[in-house]
């Protein structure tokens, strides 16, 4: 039985179409991370699944049950909000017990469940405190405790780590991952941070302007991005996309007056077909007889450096290279680069879509 199934989900606000049709099936116990820039519709999607908004079209099924018209309280879900949404006038214990009280559980049962959740999250010492007496990380854990205690069919996370400082974020990321794995609850997690997405998700859904662009495992998305948007979004610094033309019957790409071989692969594209050559900064190699690029800026990052080069025509290239003890490329120098054939990605210039070799 699928943990969550979305069937042609659409949402418009007046004339503004935010979600243009989303189909999705989550396996039971799977953690799916929805990632995209602001405005792509990911939060709207989450709120539809939560029942805080009603869809304009399509269906939502949680654990096989059609909940499209159901009230949030009837969906058996729990949500962790970006700003935690803890009840300020209740203690930590009361915050976690609230939903259970409403469901009519007996005091002893509530006590047992809250204690179990609080020891899982390390909140035992804080049960009597009010939210305003807690730090950001502690509040975050209480918000999660409140969700866990309900033992729901589905967890929803709405950018829960955005309000934490960088160090805390890394720590909490790990905790969320461990918790979800242990409890095996189907989870939907929304974030704009691609690092969070890559580390937390069993699968990722990249969204762009209301449309799902790629649904795949993190590795797949990193190694084979479905289009130029995903290619530019995942991976930091972003993948280089150089405009070029197909050559040699689909076995090479010409960028300006340099040519790059595509290896043993052959692409079913005619010569002269406009494409983007995609190459990640960490895969750009320095080669004595390669394409010339004048260096504009060099950023030293400790163990490695980022080199930004710009050609007279305006095209830019970023490359990442370990910090050489003798010092690497300097500003004003011209470097020569080569792209290993097996690292080159080919995208159709008009549609932006990835092209696989024939």
């Amino acid at each position, binding site marked *: 039985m699928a943990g969550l199934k979305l069937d042609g989900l659409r949402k418009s606000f007046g004339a503004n179409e935010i979600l243009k049709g989303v189909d999705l099936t989550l396996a039971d116990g799977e953690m799916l991370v929805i990632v995209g820039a602001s405005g792509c519709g990911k939060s709207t999607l989450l709120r539809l699944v*939560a*029942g*805080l908004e009603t869809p304009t079209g399509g269906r939502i099924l949680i654990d096989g049950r059609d909940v499209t018209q159901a*009230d*949030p*309280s009837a969906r058996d*879900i*729990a*949500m962790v*909000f*970006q*700003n935690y*949404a*803890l*009840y*300020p*006038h209740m203690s930590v214990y009361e915050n976690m017990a*609230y*939903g259970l009280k*409403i*469901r009519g559980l007996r005091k002893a049962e509530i006590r047992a469940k809250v204690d179990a959740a609080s020891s899982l999250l390390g909140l035992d010492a804080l049960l009597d405190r009010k939210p305003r007496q807690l730090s950001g990380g502690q509040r975050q854990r209480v918000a999660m405790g*409140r969700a866990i205690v*309900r033992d729901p069919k589905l967890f929803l996370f709405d950018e829960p780590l955005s309000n934490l400082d960088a160090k805390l974020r890394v720590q909490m990321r790990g905790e969320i991952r461990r918790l979800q794995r242990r409890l095996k609850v189907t989870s939907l997690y929304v974030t704009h941070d691609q690092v969070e997405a890559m580390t937390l998700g069993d699968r990722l859904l990249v969204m762009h302007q209301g449309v799902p662009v790629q649904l795949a495992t993190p590795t797949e998305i990193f190694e084979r991005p479905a289009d130029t948007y995903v290619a530019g979004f995942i991976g930091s610094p972003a993948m280089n996309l150089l405009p070029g033309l197909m050559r040699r019957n689909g076995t090479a790409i010409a960028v300006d007056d340099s040519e790059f071989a595509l290896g043993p692969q052959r692409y079913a594209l005619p010569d002269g077909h406009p494409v983007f050559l995609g190459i990640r900064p960490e895969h750009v190699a320095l080669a004595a007889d390669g394409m010339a690029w004048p260096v504009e800026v060099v950023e030293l990052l400790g163990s490695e450096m980022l080199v930004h080069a710009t050609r007279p025509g305006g095209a830019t290239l970023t490359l990442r290279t370990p910090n050489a003890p003798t010092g690497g490329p300097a500003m004003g120098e011209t470097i020569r680069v080569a792209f290993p054939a097996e690292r080159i990605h080919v995208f159709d210039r008009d549609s932006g879509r990835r092209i696989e070799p024939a």
Partner: protein
Amino acid sequence: MERRTLFPGKLLPALLILPQLVLTLVFFLWPAVQAIKSSLEREDAFGISTEFVGLENFADLFGDPLYVAAIGRTAFFCVCVTLLSMGVALVLAVLADTEIRGRAFYRTMLIWPYAVAPAMAAVLWVLMFHPQIGLVGAWLNRIGIDWDYKLDGTQAMALVILAAAWKQISYNFIFFLAGLQAIPKTILEAARIDGARGFRRFRTIMLPLLMPTVYFLLVVDLVYAAFDTFATVYAVNAGGPGQSTQTLVLKVYLDGIVNANVGSSSAQSVVLMVGVIVLCALQFRFLGRKTVT
């Protein structure tokens, strides 16, 4: 709470604060002191000399059944006006806060009554409830209910309570609405997901978070009912029939100005002063230093 960045100088600020300070001393503190002084004195029959009589005026006051009755009456009046106006305002604010269409229109239409003077509230309700000319008043008499607030004390009390509460609903509504809108939406959504709906959500989440507003309005309304309603009660029937609507503030006026009993009136003023100070002190304790700092 104080500012960290300041300007130097001592003369300038003293000059800036002087006008208000002078007016405060002359028209607030000096009269207050005078009231206390007068309350401890009594004029002789000819109004020529005054003698110090200590707390006698107060003893007389609390020994006077009319005064004690007035205290009870005023308390009853204040509680009724406060409960009625807060209750109605809360219901309206909760409804106006929901996602219904035309919210802005409803809000505007419920805010303008703030501008109505207490005296005007009385005039308007008299126009409605006058036994002969009032739409409602005349109708009541026609269907057989003996309605004449000029003769019946209970009816008079009902009328002034209604008029006074009616006028204050708007003020309470404004504050309740602001208080409700200050509750973060996500907290209400979390409650919804936790399973709380409708009245339960109101009782366990919204009301507790509204308590500062409730305490604040409680004090404001009680002070309003005790003092600002002078015009309302006076305009309806000057405290009549007899003494049935004579609240404490009316008594201060009637005894002091109309009956020229300065000693008694001053003592009454002092009693009222103490009452206000106690109320304000209570508000201070509940809301903490938020009222001042």
